[in-house]
């Protein structure tokens, strides 16, 4: 993301976001409600046109070629809505077809996703009356059916029971281990601490901090990510990152405290190294 800005009139929903998500890593985008997380994700997917700046995914610029960006993304939206009159298998067939997969290859891939998400029992039942967990699996499945290299998940575990949460987290880790680039948002700090290799904290539309969970805790002087997050979000004070923090290769990036108002394009340089693959 390069200097990503989205204004709605006088409201600055996203105000200069820069950071990089790397392959083989889970990047968490954390922020309080209304901080700009979903708007940022929607700009990445090309659903919302940025007021300024752009997003580049695997070499495709979202402003110039949004369809190509969408083609290399798998997106699990924040809604767990499904079509009640389609079965999960039909859902996957419908979404898979948008990515140019067809015939036996598509059916094989659908079966892989059904097996991976343990959806066999209800794969051929219409989705009407599905539990939240079952719907969430369908939603996750449709994001993964085309085996995308880059995966975006908006609060994937919200509202799920303990077992479903564990399954989802395992799935996210498995995707990372296979080399996928995963960007996800969550309100659960323990989840972020367990899963994320990198965390971007977004406050009032700006990146207040970027680094590993350990780095955020160390730099705020707190012994939990939750406390570190509260420290970053509270009182108008926050952390700014300087240095080449976004390439995913450098664990020694510097995190410096700064006032949020000073979180400018120049001072937040986490996105300096954009997708070096």
């Amino acid at each position: 993301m390069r200097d990503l800005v989205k204004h709605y009139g006088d409201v600055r929903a996203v105000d200069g976001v820069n950071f990089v998500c790397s392959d083989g890593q889970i990047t968490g985008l954390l922020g309080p409600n209304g901080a700009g997380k979903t708007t940022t994700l929607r700009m990445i997917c090309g659903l919302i046109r940025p007021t300024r700046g752009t997003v580049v995914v695997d070499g495709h610029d979202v402003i110039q070629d949004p369809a190509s960006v969408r083609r290399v993304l798998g997106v699990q939206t924040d809604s767990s809505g499904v079509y009640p009159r389609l079965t999960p298998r039909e859902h996957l067939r419908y979404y898979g077809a948008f990515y140019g997969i067809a015939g036996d290859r598509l059916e094989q891939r659908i079966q892989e996703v059904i097996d991976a998400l343990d959806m066999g029992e209800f794969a051929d039942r219409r989705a009407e009356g599905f539990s939240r967990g079952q719907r969430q699996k369908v939603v996750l499945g449709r994001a993964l059916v085309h085996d995308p290299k880059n995966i975006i998940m908006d609060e994937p575990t919200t509202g799920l029971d303990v077992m479903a949460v564990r399954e989802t987290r395992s799935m996210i880790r498995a995707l990372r281990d296979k080399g996928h680039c995963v960007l996800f948002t969550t309100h659960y700090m323990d989840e972020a601490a367990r899963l994320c290799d990198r965390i971007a904290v977004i406050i009032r539309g700006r990146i207040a901090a970027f680094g590993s969970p350990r780095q955020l805790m160390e730099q705020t002087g707190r012994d939990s990510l939750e406390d570190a997050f509260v420290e970053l979000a509270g009182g108008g004070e926050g952390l700014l990152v300087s240095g080449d923090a976004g390439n995913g290769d450098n664990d020694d990036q510097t995190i410096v405290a700064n006032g949020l108002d000073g979180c400018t394009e120049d001072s937040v340089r986490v996105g300096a190294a954009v997708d070096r693959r």
Partner: protein
Amino acid sequence: MWTDFVNIWRKEMVTTVRDRKGMTQAILVPLIIAVFYASFTPLLNKAMFERSQKPLIIPAKGVAYVDSELLDTMREFGITLEEYEGDLEAVIRRGDKESGLIFEPGFAENVAEERPAQIRLVTNGTAGGIFGGGFSDSRLQLAVSVFNQKAAAQRVAVRGIDPSALVPVVLETEDVATPEQEGALWASFYLPILVAVVLAQGGLFVAIDVTAGEKERGTLDALLVTPASDWAILLGKMAAVFVIGLIPLLLSVTAFWVVSNMMPSVAAVSQQGLPVFVLWGSLLIGIPMALVMSVAQMIVSVRARTFRDAQSAASPLVFAMMIPGFVAAFAPPKALWPCLIPLYGPFAALSRMAQAGKLQWDSLALATIGSLVLAVILMTVAVKLFDRERLLYGA
């Protein structure tokens, strides 16, 4: 784009067809309307015909004073006078009886002596309720008129005058309408209204379901993050609305035709039944109109946040379709050019064809051109309105 279009269209068709409640309504409501419209006029005609054939028994005071020839003439018209014991006028005022005749003493003598003989017809127009019809005096008037003609002829004949001198002008009526025109006459009124009503409602539930319904279900985001182009999404959904919208049109027009022709008791009084060209004409003008409506329904639905919003927003569309239908039904144009007017033209063409008793290709062509031009204009508007950001956040 073609693959995505087909993918979206197929999915919308499958989910719509599986919506039993929606499909039942989409099929049953137009069928009921069609059967009602098709049978209303013939059944009304039949009821009136049967009523006109039914013996008419009229309560009367002073039947004994009546000239026997007048009684015979009345019998020829199925009218029987029944002496009423009691206050006839009071009974009629109360509404217990619709009408009655009062003959004064000396009625027969007055007739015989060529003096004016008066009959009082007392009626209460409110008896029988708003559709009771009160008392129709046409049969009675006819019987009295025939008696008067007979009596007058006898009187002038006695005086050596040719009775034909009493008729200075003779009006001869000749109806040159073809059987097809007769058969389609009442359809020229009901069919434009039927087509308008069915098209206005036809694919609306699908249009709302595939747009505002997606927002409410929370499935729209997932579709918009796919690589499918705006055109593919819009056209795929629109095609489903169009195809589903054709089903009620096809069913209702066919049902209208079948009921008009196949129910013997109805067809017997609708003279010639409904010619088959009316069926083809309705479908030919209805298909481009269905396209116009599906685009218009998509435009209003796509900007709504919820199902309910979309339903409210679509209300003006129903009137936009029905008002031209009613105008064409009540005042069918004589000229050809009004057939080109979008929305009104197709109904005008249908009405003209029904009146002419045959398919009119010029009317059909103009109506189709008008509809297609409007559909293209609306399609352009729809594409401009189809903005992913606006869809997500509402209008």
